[in-house]
């Protein structure tokens, strides 16, 4: 009997360590400070989003231990950058640390560089079977994520330095969401990497991130897309704060699943077979990615519909973006049915996940490039 007691599953609060509580207090203090400073400028919905974010961040930190240091670190880097501004945007060009590291654009350029390096190092680690190099790949990806997160936070602050009526969360145009995309994809991959104790798939997932980084660089240097623009009336809504990030958890997860699908197909064909994880592990990771992506994509589409009901006069207008979101949703719904009900595994589903990326990419980018509609502000 006594022995049986030792197997009793403890309730959550008893399983938490002091470091978990410390993290929770830190997040709540930070949220309280944000509340104290900006409460008068927020409407009820935004206050609810702030409270919800604080709770969500605590939950995420308790669920995923690495988040407990990642988020405070990224936020601290951002706060350091913000403190160097002294309220003047022009200091980004003169203050040394801002100019070379902490202004949003510098931080984002560092993120880009670190992602490229991580890709190279992951591949080196994969090809030479060096655990050390693969660990370095993870480290570089973490570092890139820290800089990316900090860059977005600082960008948020900078937008208010341009003008109090210009300021907004940096998820309002294609440039900003691309950064969000790389960040979310990288973080989700890092979670699964730890969960499945395998670093080899990083070489593949980082490829899609690198492609996005390449786009960011082209978009910034060639098109000057990094300039902060004010929000058109349709985007001036608290819905943006939840709709867009939820969508990019979906896009990020689908992109990751496609790259895992590529890796699985190679393993099944015998390429890099002795270097990559087994097809079963990759298959499982792919399934996990698609199911989390499907959940968030569903939520994002519903939030989008609710926003549309506020902004465009109807929750569903068969706008090209909406329609393509439905197509993506149907695609992965079919994928999940085939796997869960029919029990398919392996090659066909891996191929399907890879093709799914094409569908997703069209919904994400192609619609903005080739089709017109209500989502036109995301255009190239």
């Amino acid at each position: 009997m006594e022995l049986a007691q030792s197997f009793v599953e403890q309730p959550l609060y008893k399983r938490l360590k002091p470091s978990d509580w410390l993290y929770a207090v830190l997040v709540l203090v930070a949220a309280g400070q944000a509340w104290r400073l900006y409460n008068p400028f927020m409407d009820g919905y935004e206050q609810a989003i702030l409270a919800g974010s604080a709770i969500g961040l605590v939950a995420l930190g308790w669920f995923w231990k690495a988040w407990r240091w990642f988020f405070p670190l990224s936020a601290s880097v951002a706060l350091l950058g913000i403190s160097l501004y002294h309220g003047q945007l022009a200091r980004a060009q003169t203050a040394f640390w801002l100019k070379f590291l902490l202004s949003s654009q510098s931080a984002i350029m560092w993120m880009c560089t670190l992602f490229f390096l991580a890709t190279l190092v992951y591949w080196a680690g994969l090809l030479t079977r060096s655990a050390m190099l693969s660990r370095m790949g993870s480290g570089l990806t973490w570092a890139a994520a820290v800089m990316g997160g900090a860059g977005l936070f600082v960008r948020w602050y900078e937008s208010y330095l341009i003008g109090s009526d210009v300021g907004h969360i940096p998820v309002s145009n294609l440039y900003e969401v691309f950064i969000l995309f790389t960040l979310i994809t990288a973080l989700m991959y890092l979670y699964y990497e730890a969960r499945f104790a395998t670093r080899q798939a990083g070489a593949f997932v980082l490829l899609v991130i690198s492609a996005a980084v390449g786009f960011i660089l082209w978009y910034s240097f060639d098109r000057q897309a990094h300039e902060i623009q004010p929000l058109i009336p349709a985007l001036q809504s608290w819905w943006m704060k939840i709709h867009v990030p939820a969508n990019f958890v979906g896009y990020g997860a689908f992109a990751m699943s496609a790259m895992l699908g590529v890796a699985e197909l190679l393993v099944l064909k015998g390429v890099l077979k002795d270097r990559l994880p087994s097809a079963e592990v990759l298959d499982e990771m792919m399934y996990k990615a698609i199911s989390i992506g499907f959940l968030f994509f569903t939520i994002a589409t519903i939030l989008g519909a609710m926003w549309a009901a506020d902004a465009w006069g109807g929750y569903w207008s068969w706008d090209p973006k909406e329609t393509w979101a439905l197509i993506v949703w149907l695609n992965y719904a079919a994928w999940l049915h085939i796997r869960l009900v029919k029990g398919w595994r392996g090659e066909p589903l891996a191929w399907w996940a890879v093709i799914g990326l094409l569908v997703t990419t069209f919904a994400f980018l192609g619609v903005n490039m080739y089709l017109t509609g209500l989502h036109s502000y995301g255009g190239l």
Partner: protein
Amino acid sequence: MTKNSRNTAVYKLYELFSSMRFAIGLLTILAIASIIGTVLKQNEPYPNYAFEFGQYWFAVFEQLGLYDVYHSGWFLTILAFLVLSTSLCILRNGPGFIKDMKAYREKASDNSLAAIKHSVELPADKVDPDTLRAYLRGQGWRWREYQREDGSLVLAAKKGAASKLGYFFAHIALVVICIGGLMDGNLPLKLAEMVGSVVPETRDIPQSQIPPQSRLSTANLSFRGNVTIAEGKSGDVVFLNAGNGYLVQELPFTVSLKKFYVDYYSNGMPKLFASDIVVTDKASGKVTEAQVKVNHPLIVDGVAIYQASFGDGGSPLSLKAWNLEAPQMQPVDIKGISMGSQPLRANGKDYNLEFGELRVFNIENMSGKSDDAAGKSLSQRMQDAREVKHEKQLKNIGPSISFKLRDKQGQAVEFHHYMAPIQQDGASYMVAGVRSKVSDPFQYLRLPLDDKLSLERFMRLRSAFMNPALYDEIAQRTTAKAMQGSAISPAMQQQFAGSVKWILARFAQGGFVALEQFLDEKVPQDKRQAVAQTYVKILQGAVVDVMDVADAKAGLPPVAMDSQHYRFLLDSLVGISALHDYQAPVLLQLQGFDQVQASGLQLTRSPGKNLVYLGSLMLVIGIILMFYVREVRLWLRCGTASVRLAMSSNRHNRDLDEDFRRRSEAIQQLVRGK
């Protein structure tokens, strides 16, 4: 179901429709069908389609309903089949799932337990069911016990039965969402159109004259329509798009627009669109006043009122008409209303003057610095990449009006005039654009303004140019000046005066182009440059005298000939020359306006909305339950010297492997004595 009924056609259909194959097929067809509507622009005016595809394909596509795919019969049929398939799937699998959720399977035989993939026989020294019960309780399992006849005890436990609940939530959610969508769809309207009780109106006629068969009463459950209301006006209907025409939806209230607001950021991007509206209920007379803006609709009586667009609501304008063909005439003041049309009679000819939109703000980038990255140094590029704010010299260059002047033959020329003087390099100009084809860009000409920022002096100068009676006097003055400056010899005096007069006449007749034409035709190529320079020089000298003569004739003192005024004269030459391409008998200069804006409102009634939201919530809950609640079953068969542990899950994955390993270790510890 009896064996017999299983073979009937109805049962076979039931089996097909509720099958997985069929559902996946439907999902695929729906996805592909949806693509059509994103590739082909929906709900455009029909002539656009006819123009794009040609008559034959236009008719074929119309029959297929491709111009409004998502409301076409075949698309709705696919959706209906999806609802049917999902409902049948629930009916088919539901009872089994419910039974499964309730069952513990405590009567499983030894063989079936041993056959489970995760199953192990653990040797035991002493089997104490209480210890095992405590273990299960401690881990939060629910279980049922079964005492077998052979004396062994089976503890059948399970966790996460809610996973099955997720199936019900997610699939019922789809049906609920589709029903909600159907309630908000225009199916009843389509049916009414099919039987002919509702006929879309295709003519462009006043709202009051639209016949009853194109009008929908307030009893209509769901609609989504638009109406444009000018400031100070009101409306009590909205217009619904219906294929090639439109329908009029009566509203239970009247909407009046008090004022429309539009606000811009400093870079010219729109910042705010808002309408102050008053809604008066027709039956009760209840008045609701509110401001609607984008993202903040007003909901009255179940009808949501949205800010959708805006435009010019017909603003009274005052203009000054300069007669270009009779330049000696004084300008005439005329009145007009933007977005309206009126007849205009000029120099004996009749025209129709069709005003377009009055735009009060025109924000332009005046820096002239292109965003083109080519040709920049690396450090400049790095600098640009670091800056999140780029300096632009944006300027509001003030109100503009566009209008068309249509002659008797129906030929129209379009104009775009700015009202305020536009400063360029320290001088002020009136800027006017002209084009004769809608597809062309406007050609802008700038007419210099005088010290009083008026066109008067320019027009006086032009009038003198156009008046050959003054040429003698002008030529005389110009020649005298040339003599004074010893530019010409006395012998050439007569010839020079003749040249001046000829150049004035030629210029008055066709501007610089006419002079150039003459050069091209009559002067050998090698001499053209020199002759052209001479002409320009003479013209630039003579223009001062033209001005003086014009001023003297008008009884005005001569203008001081400083650099600023001389520049005015040179700009005037360019302006006079450019007016030859202006293609209108009059120049209409916008003098003032009284802005009346119009607000485009969208009004919707969607009773299915809450049902759709309920379905959406159920869908999310369903997905979470299905994916993140793992249904696990566990059996412990307690024999005398051993315990069999068997585990199964609805999903076979690594989690179960790990779980099973941990639990077999724990159970082994518990039964292996103390």
